[in-house]
């Protein structure tokens, strides 16, 4: 088990990188605590897999250090790192039985056969693989195969962390849920550090206690699922998490009021004051579920046009037009939706201000 620390990690696939755009990872500082269930969330091509391969030792970073429990392992090779990795699709030794697959990492480390046997059977039990332990691994279903890949990591009693690289990609939708629950269960039982890479926010938010959001080679925010939802540090987090994502409106500040092309929106005093200090491009952001939609004018309400209503069963998504911009609001099922005209209220508590993409705190 280990606490994993990344210090000033940068990586480029180009031999002598010059510009910043040539870096797949720009500057990563991050700590994963021992025994935590963490997720690394981001769109394809943001550098998630690169970062994962640096942690597992399959890649050596161009700059920076990787520390396990304070020990520098940056140049240590993958097999020496006590790390296990589960890949996007099941990686198995086709010609071996399930038992031999699970025993393989132990045998490679010269562990004696009786201990191998005990350990393999124990892990097979945990993963519910006992019933086909003697079968050839190649003939099994995708979810069993992924469990075997995971098992090859778990058998090693010294394993510090298990890395998952989008492990549910090839699993049938009905089984995804089952396997994810199994992973949680194993995490609680064995208290290993789990790092779970995915581009699916549902998977990340339900699996992990702590989620790191990556965007263009940087970690833009680390936090609990709730944190990411309520207090996105970066415009990208607001946009990427939640469905639909956060609404953004370009604005200027005047006193306590934000001007959005003629429409005035009241902010709370602290936010407004900080917004005045901050330079750069200012944007106002609000989650669709916090945007209030009323049928009548009132105090601190701005007029908007109703463009479209989508009924999603338990809630409705309303598309609105405010001062030439499109906004989305999500309304509970029983709330009436005004026709044509609506009056919007931005609760100051949930209205955030961003300067050049970063939230003003």
């Amino acid at each position, binding site marked *: 088990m280990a606490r994993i620390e990344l210090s000033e990690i940068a990586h480029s696939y180009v031999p002598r990188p010059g510009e910043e755009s040539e870096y797949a990872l720009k500057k990563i500082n991050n700590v994963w605590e021992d025994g935590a269930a963490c997720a690394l969330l981001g769109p394809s091509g943001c550098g998630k897999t690169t970062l994962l391969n640096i942690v597992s030792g*399959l890649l050596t970073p161009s700059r920076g250090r990787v520390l396990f429990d304070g020990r520098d392992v940056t140049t240590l090779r993958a097999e020496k790192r006590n790390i296990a990795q589960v890949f996007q699709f099941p990686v198995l030794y086709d010609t071996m039985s399930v038992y031999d697959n699970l025993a393989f*990492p132990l045998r490679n480390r010269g562990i004696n056969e009786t201990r191998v046997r005990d350990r393999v059977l124990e892990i097979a039990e945990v993963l519910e693989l006992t019933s086909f332990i003697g079968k050839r691994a190649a003939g099994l279903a995708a979810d069993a195969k992924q469990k075997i890949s995971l098992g090859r990591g778990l058998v090693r009693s010294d394993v510090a962390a298990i890395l998952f690289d989008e492990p549910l990609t090839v699993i049938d939708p009905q089984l995804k849920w089952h396997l994810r629950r199994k992973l949680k269960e194993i995490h609680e039982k064995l208290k290993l550090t789990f790092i779970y890479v995915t581009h699916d926010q549902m998977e990340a938010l339900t699996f992990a206690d702590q989620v790191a959001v990556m965007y263009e080679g940087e970690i833009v925010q680390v936090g609990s699922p709730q944190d990411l939802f309520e207090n996105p540090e970066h415009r990208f987090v607001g946009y990427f998490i939640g469905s639909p994502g956060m609404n953004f409106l370009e604005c200027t500040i005047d006193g306590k009021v934000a001007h959005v092309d003629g429409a005035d929106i009241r902010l709370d005093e602290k936010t407004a004051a900080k917004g005045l200090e901050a330079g750069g491009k200012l944007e106002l952001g609000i989650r669709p579920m916090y945007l209030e939609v009323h049928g009548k004018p009132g105090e601190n309400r701005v007029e908007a046009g109703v463009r479209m209503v989508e009924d999603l069963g338990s809630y409705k998504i309303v598309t609105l037009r405010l001062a030439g911009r499109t906004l989305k609001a999500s309304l509970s099922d029983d709330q009436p939706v005004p026709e044509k005209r609506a009056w919007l209220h931005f609760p100051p508590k949930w209205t955030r201000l961003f300067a050049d993409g970063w939230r003003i705190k």
Partner: protein
Amino acid sequence: MEKWSNNKAWLLVLPVFVIVAFSAIIPLMTVINYSVQDILAPGQKVFVGTEWYREMLGDYRLHEALWRQFLFSGLVLLIEMPLGILIALAMPKKGWGVSVCLVTIALPLLIPWNTIGTIWFIFTRPDIGLLGAGMNNWLGIAFDHTANPLDAWITVMMMEVWHWTPLVALLAYAGLRAIPEAYYQAARIDGASAWSTFLFIQLPKMRGVLTIAFLLRFMDSFLIYAEPFVLTGGGPGNSTTFLSIYLVKIALLQFDLGPGGAFSLIYFVIVLLFSFIFYQALQRVGKGEKV
């Protein structure tokens, strides 16, 4: 993959069937026809039943040629398969080196078969060949493939390995390239040695292409004709008279069409039988997931 069931697909296969049948079935019929007749003169034939088959099956020169052929094909497979795999493993995975390697390796495959014979004929002659003259004059080893049967065998084997190992290498390389990177990464994390990686990942994943390579090499080496014919003409004596060379001697040079036809069919059946057995056996060995 579940396939659509549709007999109209035959329409798509029909052109292939017609074109191959034209070149395969009619000549095959002709050969069968020869094999049961004695052709005394054009237009003068006598039906002789299985006589030619009995004669050919009892022909000791055919037996010799057959054992020679088995020894040759066995050695070919034993040398070329491991060597080809080894070369494929050594080839670069990316960069400009890939094209250079592919082009160089494929070169012998694109040389007409009798030119291959010619190259080695010139290369190994004791008077003007680099190898022949080198062995005799510099190393002091008497080497003459035109006089010594063992030297002739060595020369034919060298030529065959030189000519066809590239095919095995190319196919093995294609198989290696198809293995996803994650397998190697998993093997590293599991602490597998290079040998284990080869045994448990590379070899099983190459099974499909290696089956093809094995069968192609078996068939083609069993049918070899032009290269040894040009190089040694089947000699010295009969020491490199392989089945095809003997067949051509009977059928074309002596113009014994009856025995030649019977021989051809026996030959065909042997190749078919062994290819089928090998195919079945290779399918069973390590039957696993397809790449």
